[in-house]
């Protein structure tokens, strides 16, 4: 029954979104809806599961800032610097979050995939958006379950996964990528990650052909070199009641042109901001105490004055006594100082 109603829903989507027959990715994702219906309760990027199954994508946590994503296949092996992981015995059937001992005796943790873990592990095909910007984009675009979002370009799919997580189970993402190979790779990833039923990948130029949908979007996101050329298409993609738009640009000149176009096109609440995240390193630091000489009238004063050599040697001779240790957190020596400017705007009803 669920299958039938989902089919009906998707046929409805096809009709409403002005489906064009040349759109192969759309059919791909449409077919995968059917495939998705058969094995229920599999791990996915939008649904937690307890145990690892064949076909899952898991994140192997090797240590601080060292992780790798792997696809679980019966009989397969994955080499790590701690030795091999045998999928059949070490992964399948194990609980996510367990410690797995590798062949050389070292151990790793196997983690459930999340969009945030994917962001730091995905294969780069382009420059990607990181969680700091993604978090603010998600909040400022008012994304929530059920939202319909248009995005371009798809790039490496870092933001796409985060959007899908947030809009599931009833929302939809229409993502446009003009690079054919990247579009195909992204579509493949969405299938692997069992989120293909929530996304339509279109291989076209958003500046010329738009998003391929009209009157459906609650939010539009642009990460392209000339966002001002896509704003007129973005405007058409919005629902009649309007919605929120975001454009990500590294250069202020791009922001300038985008804001001018947004104003011309009747967008309101235009706001440009920048967010930077600092990761603090927690550690103990030890600082030596300065020696200010004997305190006035203290019992040591007589001894000290008679032996100036001992006074000189004192800080070196007894460092343990003369230092303080505290737990602190220090900002990194170097950090990402700029990713891009985020320009937000509201498309009013119209």
């Amino acid at each position, binding site marked *: 029954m669920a299958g039938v*109603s989902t089919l009906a829903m998707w046929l*409805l*989507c096809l009709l*409403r979104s002005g489906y064009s027959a040349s759109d192969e990715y759309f059919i791909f994702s449409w077919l995968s809806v059917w495939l998705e219906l058969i094995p229920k309760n599999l791990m996915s990027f*939008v*649904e*937690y599961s307890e145990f690892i199954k064949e076909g899952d994508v898991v994140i192997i*946590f090797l240590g*601080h800032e060292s992780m790798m994503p792997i696809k679980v296949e019966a009989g397969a092996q994955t080499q790590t610097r701690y030795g091999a992981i045998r999928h059949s015995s070490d992964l399948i059937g194990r*609980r*996510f*979050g*367990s*410690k797995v001992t590798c062949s050389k005796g070292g151990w790793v*943790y*196997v*983690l*459930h995939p999340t969009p*945030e873990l994917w962001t730091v592990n995905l294969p780069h095909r382009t420059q990607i958006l990181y969680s*700091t910007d*993604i*978090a*603010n984009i*998600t*909040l*400022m675009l*008012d994304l*929530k*379950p*059920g939202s*319909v979002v248009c995005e371009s370009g798809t790039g490496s799919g870092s933001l796409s996964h985060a959007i899908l997580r*947030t809009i599931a*189970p*009833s*929302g939809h993402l229409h993502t446009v990528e003009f690079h054919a190979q990247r579009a195909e790779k992204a579509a493949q990833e969405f299938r692997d990650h069992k989120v293909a039923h929530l996304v339509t990948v279109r291989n076209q130029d958003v500046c010329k052909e738009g998003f391929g949908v009209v009157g459906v979007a*609650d939010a539009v996101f642009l990460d392209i070199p000339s966002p001002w050329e896509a704003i007129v298409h973005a405007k058409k993609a919005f629902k*009649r*009641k*309007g919605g929120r738009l975001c454009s990500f640009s590294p250069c202020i000149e791009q*922001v*300038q042109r985008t*804001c*001018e176009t947004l104003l011309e096109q009747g967008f309101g609440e*235009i706001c*440009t*901001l*920048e*967010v*930077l*995240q*600092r*990761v*603090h390193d*927690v550690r103990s630091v030890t600082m030596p105490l300065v020696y200010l000489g004997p305190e006035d009238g203290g019992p040591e004063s007589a001894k000290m004055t008679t032996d100036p050599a001992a006074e000189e040697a004192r800080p070196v001779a007894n460092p343990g006594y003369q230092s303080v240790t505290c*737990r*602190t*957190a220090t900002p990194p020596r170097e950090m990402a100082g700029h990713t891009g400017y985020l320009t937000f705007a*509201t498309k*009013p*009803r119209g």
Partner: protein
Amino acid sequence: MADPLGVESDEEECRICEGEYVVLKRGEVYKSVQVEKRKKVIFEKQWIFMDNAVGQLYGSTFEVDSGGILNLRKPKQDEDSTDNKEAGLDNRHIVDDGKSQKLTRDDIESLKEQGLKGQEIIQQLIDNSTTFKDKTEFAQEKYIKKKKKKYESNVTVLKPSCRILAMMYHGREPGKICHLRYDTLAHMLTMGNIHAGSKIIVFETCAGLVLGSVMERMGGHGSVVQMYPGGGPVRAGMESFGFPSHFHETLHEFPLCKVNALLSGTLNLDEKDMDSQSEEGSSEPQSMEVSLDPAEAKKREEREKLREQKAQEKKAKLEEKRKRLAAAAALLEGRNADGLVIASRFSPCSALLCLLKFVAPSRPFVVYCQYREPLIECYTKLREQGGAISLRLTDSWLRHYQVLPNRTHPVLLMSGGGGYLLSGITVASAASGAQQKSSEPAAKRIKLDEITSTADSSA
């Protein structure tokens, strides 16, 4: 089934109805109110009656007249009223003698009393300013903008969202939300992987804003257990979101003072609530008043009846509360929550270490604190104890930009700090230990049939 494109519900969703929670916006100032007819609301030093907003579309802008009545503004009533092309090139001849404005304060007051619109007052001010035409184009624009802010009283009525409410609280009452800035809140929701279908534990003393934000991201799918200190959960901020009723069915609450009992398996659900008992006691002396008057006696009888009724209601309430407690306990007992979010004024360390026991392995958690040092303590303790990896202590900077032709620069004032976050991922702590713990008969005292029945009814 939810309409995936939301076209049909589009129109209905956007009309303002009586009883709904909305957010008023004027300039950059927000205020959350519930729409009620014939009720005065104060916003930006103005009395407002919301009556005329009912039935209008969300996002509509109204002009407030002197009686506080909202008048719908036409959407295409835009600013381009300043066609005076005359402008100076620099300010070398502009002298600040305090006499450039020919209108006195009294003149302006009388203009206002005449009921002149904001736009008209501003035009009067421009006409009576001797220096206006000598100002540069940019300075003229700035002058008009400043006056508009003062004399034009346009109020926009918005549908509440996490973004709007987080900005509102941060602007109006940062103390109530532990100075949690909206970009930090955004991080919490993202780092916590908050999404539909999960089971999330929330402990917050941010007026219910964090709770509401989590609920918005879950869209009524899954469950939220709010851990509360003191007598009851605070939810004012959550109420302002105006969630549909089925969202509330996914919300549970559990008192923090019973967490240790739950963990040790000694939680007794039949236990009478201490405070309600004392309340009953305090109402006793009133009925001891003796009166011989028959009319008075009748009244007393009625009063007695009423009291009985109240007692009955109270009993029902207590029973309901007990059921809810049992349901929340059942949710927590599985120790398989999908996430933990903490944002409170309390020292986070003990709460974090304790509440993490309810979270399944391989799930994210995130702790907010206005200060850095308590999170350093959490970090250190977690490292010692194990059971968590990928620990990160972060904070973020938020910078706004003014983007205007030839006048683009960062906004002069920025927020000094939006608080700190500690995030991480749970893992199974030392395999054998974890197994032992989970095989222990935890909280067997809760009657199982009861739990399942209440859990079913609330699911």
